[in-house]
């Protein structure tokens, strides 16, 4: 599956970052690296671009670029570590309930 197909509210694991040149460099620099958890937050009112949450911050990319990123569905970890850095990528409401 590719990132543009990820449903809003769902998380996934990045498996491969495609694209080339400046785009690819930028994606990698922003922390979109294989084995990173990524969450689709929302779509822009006109359907494109999309807002993503990765490594504890939000960023937006266009669908055509998201299509160059391959993902696999990731299970949201049920056990939350105290530092919470790994689970915050998913849903912080769960985190408060289950954490600490």
């Amino acid at each position, binding site marked *: 599956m590719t990132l543009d197909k990820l449903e809003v509210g769902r998380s996934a694991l990045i498996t491969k970052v495609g694209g080339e040149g400046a785009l690819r460099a*930028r994606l990698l620099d922003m*922390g979109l*690296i294989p084995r990173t958890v990524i969450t689709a937050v929302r779509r*822009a009112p006109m359907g494109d671009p999309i807002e993503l949450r990765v490594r504890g911050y939000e960023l937006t990319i266009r669908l055509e670029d998201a299509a160059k990123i391959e993902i696999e569905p990731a299970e949201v970890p049920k056990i939350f570590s105290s530092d919470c850095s790994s689970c*915050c990528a998913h849903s*912080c409401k769960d985190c408060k309930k289950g954490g600490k």
Partner: protein
Amino acid sequence: MVFALVGNQNCGKTTLFNQLTGSNQHVGNFPGVTVESKVGVIRSRKADTVVDLPGIYSLRAYTNEETVTRDFILKNKPDGIINIVDATNIERNLYLSLQLLSMGVPTVIALNMMDEVRGNGGSINIEKLSRALGVCVVPISAAKNEGIDELIERAAEVASKRIMPAVKDFCTVGPVHRCIHSVTHLVEDHAEMIRMSPRFAATKLIEGDEELADTLGLNENERETIEHAVIEMENEGGLDRMAAIANMRYDFIEKACAGTVIHAAETKEHRRSSAIDKVLTGKFTAIPVFIGVMFLVFWLTFGLVGQPLADLLAAGIESLIAVIDTALEDFGMNPVAKSLIVDGVLAGVGSVLSFLPLIVVLFFFLSVLEDTGYMARVAFVTDRLLRKIGLSGRSVVPMLIGFGCSVPAIMATRTLSSERDRKLSVMLVPFVSCSAKLPIYAVFTAAFFPDNAPLVMLGLYLFGIIVGILAARFSGAFIFRGTAMPFVMELPNYRFPSPKSVFMLMKDKAWDFIRKAFTVILAASVIIWFLQTFDIRFNVVENGEGSLLAAVGKFISPLFVPLGFTDWRIPTALITGFTAKEAVVSTLAVLVGTTVSELPNVLMHSPELFTTASAMAFLVFTLLYTPCVAAVATLRREFSSRLGAAGVVLFQCVTAWVCAFIVYRIALLF
């Protein structure tokens, strides 16, 4: 000593810079690019300066901003680097830090927004982080002016004792490690020859930086050896060169942060941001809110606050001019010299000053929108539309401001994050019909289309936008080639803007405009005065007909015959429009011997001047032809090239002529 201030976008860099330097700032451009450079003297250490480098995420040389930062550190060799890091988003911010640390320059990390981390129950073990990264880390809050003194002290200490970053190895044993180390050895002497850190050179070479290979003077053999090492690393590690290095950095950061950084479950700032975003970027609310915000900014700038201020200023200047006028007359000054002072110099000064309230008020709102984080959302919401014309969502705001006045609109392109987008937007803005052209439309629609005035006006505005879009597509394809900057943009948490930063930006923009536009506008005003006052034998003219200006108008009038402007007075009026668009109607009124308010009546009954068809052509021509001198001066500044500005003027005049010609020919058919 010279310090370089480096950090990501949205990490509080400008706020820190303002705290460090106060008002001792000098704003300029890096040579050859439209990337802003700011230099300031550190408030508490008068002998030291700090250079504010553009906000970047990485040191690859893909954008001008990255290249400028990299070149500044490599070539200007600052005594120290102050790397500002957003503690609430520490992982991604440290990615740039790791690259800076490998450059072999004394560095301190300013860990900003620590108050926010603590306020949410999170914590960062400064000592541990400092040890893991091998540099001094100083917790600060730029917005609250906390920790700044210690930061300066540490930076000065590190720089004066030349304390280099202690940790150089960001890789753990494995294929990447092996590759970096073998390449480092291979290029060691090459790099040291140009006083570059071998580690930095090796990492960049592995990432595929061809330019650096040339700079280092590597021969074929060495390049091949490096390529072999890299291929070996790719095969063994399973990641290609770019991903492998990025992965190594993030791995290192994750390890350094584990046990050191304790994140709050969800910060209240983030919760608040998510709540605001539900409305501001929501499916049904985003666009109405955006239109509302723009309308409000417009109304406040050009309606409620800015324009009245400008009018007030203009009235003040006018009465001042009147006083000087009478004083000079009583003094018995030669009427021509008096006219030069009053109609040439003072009128020019007045027109420069009349722009100021608009610029100041507009930039107040723009910097608030930018600093709160809403501008990034605007880009997110409008990107899909703007992409169709080869721009990104960020360009929408400067374009909309263009409906008010091209000058602040062109200045506002500064907020765009890529040079290509900036230049394209600067090209596009003058095609958006500014408010100074309204008097022209008003006179001509009243004279020729009294029944369809709103329709004609709307049509003109739309026509301007369409031509602008076509021009942008054309110049995007032929003039500013190069790939568009990737639209991968951070959406920072909403924050309360720092009043100091907002104020500094307003002050900068106002000064910037005065400094750069003053001489140009003054010169243009004096030249037009000269042309209007004298005839070809340098005698003072009695009426407009014999003046040099009329002579120029007559000289170029054959050019306008194909557009249906057969009378010399029309091109003459158009020339004066270069100083300010409103001047077109006032000059035309003087030349036909009437007042502006009577002009529609006179035009209606003088078919030798305009027919309906040529009036339409005239409207289209004034819509599209050269921006006024103030806009051209700003344009020149943003392009940092005279040739570029002259090119835009020429391009627009030609476009205007062609469009007016087509419109005239079509109108003749009916």
